[in-house]
């Protein structure tokens, strides 16, 4: 693939414009007054950037709490699901015990079933546990991950047996082998799973909407859905709110974009 046609750039630039215009328009609108935003024909740049739209939505919704709750949700889900998945994946890839296949079948079954089927009972469970409206309630469905178990299993399967056998001969326990030898070897898998889990926790909408009852206990994604209810058509403020909700992940992505893209690519390549 040596020859490059100039058309390649034309097509890619066109596509890139389609991808970012919505974001650009969001930023521009968020700086306009309501009258300015509904002007016909529209102006492209705000006459004067209205920061008041930001203070207005910030005053209306507890964004500080949204950030905190989202952060806790992401950290909680990543920590628990990566830890439990790594353990389960290691066992099902490298250890032999009765019922291993049954367990793996369980993992596969969960991956096939649409998530909505779990939601009502998960919600009733969260109620029984009394964790509706808490960070634990938000994390709940992500304590374990069938997807993560499957993914990391693929990584563990590729590690050659010799390393492990040498360690066993040295008298290392399975626990030591797992933590000291195997986990470092699947580091790229752990990173990939962490990114994947973080991204999907951040984007989850239906569960936080259901699992929280007060506004200051919810996440950015679901909190923003609230904003729409209150400010049906104040577009500049809606756009300001949207920006407040998208920037953290956007910034993280731009800083760690290599890791993000590698992470996502690995998750696909391993399945």
């Amino acid at each position: 693939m040596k020859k490059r046609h100039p058309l390649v750039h034309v097509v890619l630039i066109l596509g890139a414009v389609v991808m970012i215009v919505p974001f650009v328009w969001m930023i521009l609108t968020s700086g306009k007054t309501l009258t300015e935003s509904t002007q016909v024909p529209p102006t492209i740049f705000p006459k004067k950037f209205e920061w008041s739209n930001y203070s207005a939505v910030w005053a209306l919704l507890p964004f500080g709490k949204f950030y905190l709750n989202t952060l806790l949700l992401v950290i909680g889900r990543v920590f628990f699901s990566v830890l439990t998945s790594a353990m389960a994946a290691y066992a099902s890839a490298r250890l032999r015990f009765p019922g291993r296949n049954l367990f793996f079948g369980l993992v596969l079954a969960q991956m096939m079933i649409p998530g909505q089927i779990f939601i009502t009972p998960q919600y009733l469970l969260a109620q029984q546990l009394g964790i509706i409206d808490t960070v634990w309630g938000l994390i709940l469905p992500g304590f374990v991950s069938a997807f993560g178990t499957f993914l990391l299993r693929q990584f563990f399967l590729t590690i050659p047996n010799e390393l492990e056998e040498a360690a066993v001969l040295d008298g290392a326990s399975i626990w030591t082998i797992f933590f000291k030898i195997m986990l470092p070897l699947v580091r790229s898998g752990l990173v990939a799973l962490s990114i994947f889990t973080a991204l999907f926790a951040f984007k989850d909408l239906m569960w936080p909407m259901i699992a929280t009852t007060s506004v200051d206990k919810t996440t950015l994604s679901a909190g923003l859905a609230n904003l729409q209810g209150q400010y049906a058509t104040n577009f500049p403020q809606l756009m300001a709110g949207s920006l407040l909700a998208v920037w953290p992940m956007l910034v993280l992505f731009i800083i760690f974009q290599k890791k993000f893209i590698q992470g996502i690519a690995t998750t696909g390549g391993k399945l």
Partner: protein
Amino acid sequence: MHHQRRIGKYRVNEIIWGYLFILPTAVGLIVLNIKPAIDTIYMSFNKSAGFGRMTWTGLDNYKRLMADPEVWQSLLNTLKYSVIAVPLIVVFSLIVAVLMNQKIKGLSVYRTLYFLPVVAAPAAVAMIWKWLFNSNYGLINQMLGNFGIKPINWLSDPDIAIYTVIIVGVWSAIGYNMVLLIAGLQDIPNDYYESAEIDGAGPIRQFFTITLPLVTPTLFFVVVTTVIGAFQVFDSIFMMVQQNTDAMYKTQSLAYLFYKYSFILNDKGYGSAIVVLLLGIILIITAIQLKLQKKWVYY
């Protein structure tokens, strides 16, 4: 290792650690997924009396479901969404991936820009598009106006709203699948292209004889996950289309209908029956795809 105790073909040590290691995930999956799935199926045979109370009604919900035009319309909408959105997502992602699988300038910039929609919260994405598609002041109608096109009710015209939702769905999904496909393309050994070039094959022929067949394993994964995602579409519909309108009737997916009955109208029994229907459909379609896989995927 000969000194370790064994039971049959297993080592005791491995049995103990194996169970300890799978314990959290196994318990989690049973409590959070398997039991809920069974509960939902059980609930679908019940009528909810509010505040979590249930009474057994046998097949009533399913009888009602079969006779409910809203369910059939939602199923039709879901199919329509999937049939249109999936090919668009796959084709666009593949084109972009192939274009980016070259040594060109600004590659990482392109990749970053195309991936941006993937990291944006769906609620924000929906809000942004809702504003772009606004019939009075939206950028899109304003631009079309320059060409003398009358304002289009992108989100409230019952015949159009579903296509608008599809556009947003495709836009949001390209970046993710593009990255997966680029990874798949990079696994194709360069020698193949070099020998093809010696044979005088042009880029188009190279694409169809080398690239496409060899990327099918990744493509298969992309198709299966995109289909499953399409069948569960909810966020964009919920956020962009007005409740209880004709436009919603012609756009709502089964996943949205499930949400409406379970959490807006609080009829969790009927909602469960709807999601069981959705489960059945997804299982059938996934099974078909796995069957067809042999016909077009090269390993």
